């Protein structure tokens, strides 16, 4: 690291007002790789006032995490802080300390790290050491910075665990990370980060890997702890909903620079920079199922190694001024107290079109389509006969124990599920992780052999329905081309050893044996690539040459090459960035119209489901607890679980933050191998009535046209 070479400044800098805890001044962190210098952070300025939460938001590859890690000197080689200052002033009378000038291994830095600034990472399971108990790791963090005896540390650690909302802290003190759920682990991680009462907590995507219900509770916890201790927070996230939920101030980053800063209300109500505007626009909103489209930002974040000249955002900007934006880098313009943006449009001296309003000129067109559904897009015409009818489907996985592998029980991943999917509609399947939605999707695609039940599929020619669950793999072959799957992970689902031509062409040769000459396959693959928005010339390249969004396009091409009728999209957009997600959602919608597709859309992201789906089924512990049309489900949920899920979704509107009481569920999903008797949800239900709920299994009740809810009190409870 070069940082220690520079003289350590001793004079208090004039730029650090007493109200600020941390001031990042023109920070530049570069990675010196074999392929050249990657300017991951390139001139970031940021202030964190005492007791405030500053959200750093942007797509992946924008340098958010590197900025956060630079503060604590945690940038791994070949990265290092090139220039700039990080002024740290834990208490106003003292002189600020420049963290950027400290050697990352120096004692002074180690005192700050963990002692004065705590950090929480994205993957709670991965950031806790599996070989030590929670208590061990917590007391270690304390005793490194505070003069405590082992007994004192233990006492304090248990209090700390209780403070972060871990039930039975004495017992959990001796638990290993793998014995706790993801949400618990993140709580433990927060407990460790806050062990020494730091003045600042840096949270790097702390809720991204968690379920929406757990996320809501972790956000509540962080907010409570912030209010209790008066600490400040730097919260790194890509999710604008979370930003609206927790931020006081927001810094929007793009390609290593802060493009806009302001209070959370300013950013959401009056965004100034086109990138901020575009990010807000690409959030999925309700009612797209009528045929509207999301306003996706064109293109994707370029690699920091080949940063565009001038304003880095200009190739994707709808209001780009030729000759200016692509040559001159815009200066940061102060727009008021603690508010600034870096865009030429805001510069009074630039005689240019007016600053972009919430809807910039170039994206008005699609916005209009949203208001008036295009007549070309046929409204879903649910015919009488369902395309697919799942009846009493069960998928049990045996739990084996002992040397002899005796089956001691079953995990009921899918337990007696009924679901109908009609031709041309999009059915959403939502639920927390571990509820069995992916297993259900895989059973329908027959990637798994269901334990029981029927999957009745109606052929295109009419005729009697076929039970896919009973077919052997040879008999299934004709149906493999009609029911296709789009996988979640665009990296894991494409074989890295195959070219796009092989990947996309394989189902053609295997399933549809009609015309399988090489040239015909090439033509079809080229055509399909064009449809999903990739260049046909790429067909001889390997998946690793593509970004996540492009790979997901490849996955879609592979699924659609056989001209399927039903597509099971298993978390198809969950791994993608906001802007790319909007592009893929638009693509899925376009292709649905073009090929008359029916989608089963599995997702944990309720906002995406709300925007895309016609009907939604909610799964809990292997059972469907509620299904209804999207509108009625989101406005009048009939099951307490649905209501809780909906209330946990962060709303991208900071004004609605404090409204109404929220329903918060306990973190732990019951063990699917040993589901609770009666209603499976009664252990976490705020409305439970022990007399019935713990005894009788509720049957689905009809609440309206096509609205079913499996709750004893469905219709009687006031849920929203």
């Amino acid at each position, binding site marked *: 690291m070069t940082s220690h070479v520079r003289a350590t400044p001793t004079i208090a800098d004039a730029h650090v007002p007493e109200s600020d805890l941390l001031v990042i001044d023109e920070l530049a962190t570069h990675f010196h790789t074999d392929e050249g210098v990657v300017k991951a952070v390139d001139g970031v300025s940021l202030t964190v006032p005492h007791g405030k939460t500053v959200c750093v938001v942007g797509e992946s590859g924008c340098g958010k995490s590197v900025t956060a890690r630079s503060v604590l000197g945690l940038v791994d080689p070949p990265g290092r802080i090139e220039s700039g200052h990080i002024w740290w002033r834990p208490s106003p009378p003292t002189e600020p300390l420049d963290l950027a000038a400290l050697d990352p291994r120096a004692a002074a830095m180690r005192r700050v790290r963990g002692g004065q600034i705590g950090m929480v990472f994205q993957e709670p399971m991965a950031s806790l050491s599996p070989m030590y108990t929670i208590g061990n790791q917590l007391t270690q963090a304390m005793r490194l910075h505070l003069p405590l005896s082992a007994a004192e540390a233990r006492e304090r650690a248990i209090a700390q665990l209780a403070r972060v909302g871990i039930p039975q802290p004495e017992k959990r003190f001796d638990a290993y990370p793998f014995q706790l759920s993801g949400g618990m682990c993140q709580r433990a991680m927060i407990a460790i980060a806050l062990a020494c009462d730091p003045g600042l907590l840096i949270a790097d995507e702390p809720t991204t890997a968690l379920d929406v219900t757990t996320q809501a509770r972790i956000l509540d916890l962080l907010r409570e702890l912030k209010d209790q201790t008066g600490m400040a927070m730097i919260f790194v996230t890509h999710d604008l909903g979370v930003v609206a939920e927790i931020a006081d101030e927001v810094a929007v980053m793009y390609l290593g620079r802060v493009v806009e800063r302001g209070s959370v209300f300013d950013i959401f109500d009056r965004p100034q920079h086109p990138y901020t505007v575009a990010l807000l626009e690409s959030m999925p909103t309700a009612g797209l199922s009528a045929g509207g489209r999301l306003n996706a930002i064109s293109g994707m974040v370029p690699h920091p190694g080949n940063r565009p000249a001038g304003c880095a955002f200009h190739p994707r900007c709808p209001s780009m001024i030729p000759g200016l934006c692509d040559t001159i880098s815009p200066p940061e313009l102060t727009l008021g107290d603690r508010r600034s943006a870096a865009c030429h449009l805001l510069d009074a001296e630039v005689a240019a079109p007016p600053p972009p309003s919430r809807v910039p000129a170039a994206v008005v067109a699609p916005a209009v389509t949203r208001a008036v559904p295009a007549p070309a897009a046929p409204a879903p015409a649910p015919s009488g006969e369902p395309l697919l009818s799942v009846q009493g489907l069960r998928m049990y996985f045996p739990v084996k124990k002992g040397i002899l592998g005796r089956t001691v029980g079953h995990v009921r991943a899918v337990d007696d599920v009924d679901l109908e999917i009609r031709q041309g509609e999009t059915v959403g399947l939502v639920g927390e992780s571990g509820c069995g939605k992916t297993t259900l999707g895989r059973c329908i695609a027959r990637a798994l052999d269901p334990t029981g039940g029927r999957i009745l599929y109606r052929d295109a020619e009419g005729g009697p329905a076929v039970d896919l669950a009973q077919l052997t793999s040879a008999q299934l072959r004709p149906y493999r081309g009609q029911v296709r799957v789009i*996988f979640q992970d665009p990296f894991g*689902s494409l074989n890295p050893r195959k070219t796009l031509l092989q990947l996309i062409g*394989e189902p053609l040769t295997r399933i549809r044996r009609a015309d399988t000459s090489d040239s015909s396959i090439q033509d079809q693959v080229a055509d399909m690539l064009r449809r999903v928005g990739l260049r046909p010339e790429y067909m001889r390249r390997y998946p690793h040459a593509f970004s996540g969004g492009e790979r997901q396009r490849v996955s879609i091409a592979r699924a659609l090459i056989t001209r399927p009728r039903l597509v099971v999209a298993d978390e198809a957009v969950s791994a993608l960035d906001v802007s790319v997600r909007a592009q893929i959602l638009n693509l899925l919608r376009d292709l649905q119209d073009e090929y008359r597709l029916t989608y089963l859309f599995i997702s944990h992201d309720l906002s995406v489901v709300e925007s895309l789906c016609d009907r939604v089924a909610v799964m809990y512990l292997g059972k469907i607890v509620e299904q209804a049309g999207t509108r009625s489900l989101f406005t009048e949920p009939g099951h307490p679980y649905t209501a809780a899920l909906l209330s946990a979704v962060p709303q991208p509107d900071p004004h609605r933050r404090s409204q109404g009481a929220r329903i918060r569920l306990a973190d732990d999903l019951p063990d699917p191998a040993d589901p609770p008797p009666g209603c499976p949800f009664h252990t976490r239900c705020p409305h439970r009535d022990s007399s019935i709920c713990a005894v009788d299994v509720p049957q689905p009740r009809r609440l309206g046209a096509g609205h079913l809810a499996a709750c004893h009190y469905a219709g009687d409870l006031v849920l929203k």
Partner: protein
Amino acid sequence: MLQPDSPPERPGVAADPAPDGAHLAVEPEAVSVASQWKLMWWRFRRHRLAMAGLIVTALFYFVAVFADFLAPYGSGTFESEHTYAPPQTLRIVDTSGDGWDWGLYVHGYRAERDPETLELRYAVDEATRIPVRLFAEGETYRLFGLFETDIHLFGTADPDAPPVHLLGADRLGRDQLSRIIHGTRISMSVGLIGVSVAFVLGILLGGVSGYVGGKTDTVIQRVVEFFMSLPTLPLWLGLAAAVPRDWGPLTRYFAITVVLSFVAWTGLAREVRGRFLSLREEDFVTAAKLDGVGRPGVIFRHMLPSFTSHLIATLTLSIPAMILAETALSFLGLGLQAPVVSWGVLLQEAQQIRVISTAPWLLLPGLAVVTAVLALNFLGDGLRDAADPYRR
């Protein structure tokens, strides 16, 4: 590292990542396509040590193929007057006459017997000059068993002159250099068949075990454990005794390695099984199944290629193990035996301290073993790194 979700561009990717196709802002440059093997080769070339390993390995196999031509003498040719003769220096400049002149030659030996210890001592005889030339005529041999010729890379200009020993001679006055060269052929090749048999068996059984799972897996794993518990050395001893006496020494050794390879597949089978178990859960395997690919197709066309890198490395690393095994066994007298020449057999000569102190050049075959094993190890390492498409 950067953030995990934005890995830096990998080396070897033919062109810059394409901009999002649907919204092409900028026309991409012409796209060139490189095959998998080309990409591997590009990455491999950047690995200096592995390149060196490749060159040395190639040299060794070149020597093995052209041993008859490169060695000045046959493996059994001896000169009884040159017992334990020390290495001679090849001289290029001739200063014996007036001024100096070009010319390859060595000085002859002057042997003296110590009157007290009866030890034979050699001194360089500056007076005698034995001229040496390239492509000299020597013993006749059949190149590749086809072309009869008597041309060697170098030798004495006069076929009847006393032999030259650039690396000295052994107990019977045989040329050490020639014997090391001839030994290369045996040492570098005799275990290859055994290795390949073990390799095929390991992949096949490990693959079936990992992919099919269940009872098949249990049975194969128990078999693996049984074979792993067999002590190799006693087995080798037993086999050496059991192989018919009338077979030649090379055939016997060959038979033993093949039999042993039926035991040696276990380690690889376990690794392959583990890989299959984890790959079976990968999305791309499920995707292939949903694409209608049959079981053999999934195993051999989708799963196996994804750890080719690992297999290549295992294969390259098992060749040095085989060389070492041969050397060790021959040294102990269990493997190859004279008159077959291998590095291990040559080292047998150097079993006594007394011999080594008088003729340290008898240890030179050991140097050949070390060089070959190191080179193959570096080569395997480099191949493993190069073959992994997700290497950072």
